[in-house]
């Protein structure tokens, strides 16, 4: 199936869960936040969050700023 990962089409296996994508694409890191279809998903729920065709996943992290 395909999801939109940070606005890019991203093919992934059916039955993928949110933490599968994060671990494969970015690795386990502190200072990250994820929104699924616009809703923030707390880190503790990543493993229990299944993804569906067409889902929009936005991944952010802390960077330098003033």
């Amino acid at each position, binding site marked *: 199936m395909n999801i939109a990962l940070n606005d890019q089409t991203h093919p992934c296996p059916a039955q993928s869960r949110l933490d599968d994508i994060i671990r494969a694409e970015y690795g386990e890191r502190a200072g*990250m936040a994820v929104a699924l279809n616009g809703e923030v998903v707390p*880190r503790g729920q990543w493993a229990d969050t299944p993804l569906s065709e067409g889902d929009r996943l936005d991944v952010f992290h*802390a960077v*330098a700023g003033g």
Partner: protein
Amino acid sequence: MLTIADTHFQSRLLTGTGKFHHPDTMLAALEASGTELVTLALRRMDRRDRDHLFEPLARAGYRLLPNTSGARTADEAVQAARLAREAMGTSWLKLEIHPDPRWLMPDPVETLAAAERLVREGFVVLPYVHADPVLCKRLEEAGCAAVMPLAAPIGSNRGLESRAFLDIIIEQSGVPVIVDAGLGAPSQAAEAMELGTDAVLVNTAIATARDPVAMARAFRGAVEAGRQARDAGLAARQSQAEASSPLTDFLSEATP
């Protein structure tokens, strides 16, 4: 002591983490500044990103103040705030909404709307605003934990261009006033503290100095000096001279 939302700070110098050439320089400068509260931004993650600032900053024990830079509307700022809270594990927030990249002037209408919503969601909101006394009062009434009026445009290093209005804000504010943006030299930070500002936030002036660590130390000293001067009570300005020594008329007394 500076107190924001029941949290006490020894240092009245807040620092940003942007524009440093190297993360090690940034960490050394923050340490030299004595700061206890540092700002961070949030960005969409790229898998090639190697910007690992969060962990060293958290490990060093700084309280983190995520900003909403990049948000152009209240809706975007609220979303950024929720993401920042999740990413950085803090409900403290520097709310900034500046739609125009040329001047980076904060949008007062969107900022007030966002502040009201974020306070209801339990955020500790520190809004970056123009030095507008009415707006600052409205934000205080909305439940903001502090107000952050600008001295001059972000990164401009021009100093207290908003001085006359900062005076009014400081005089009437019931929450801490943190002068943010535009402070380019330690003397300007000292001047802000002498005015009665509770704290200042400095980023560009430290980060882009030839020696950021030494400049951080200089800002630390200036903020402390300015605060001490404020507490000591500045002498009044006079339009004419007023002698500091007795004016004995030596010549006329010596020659009858």
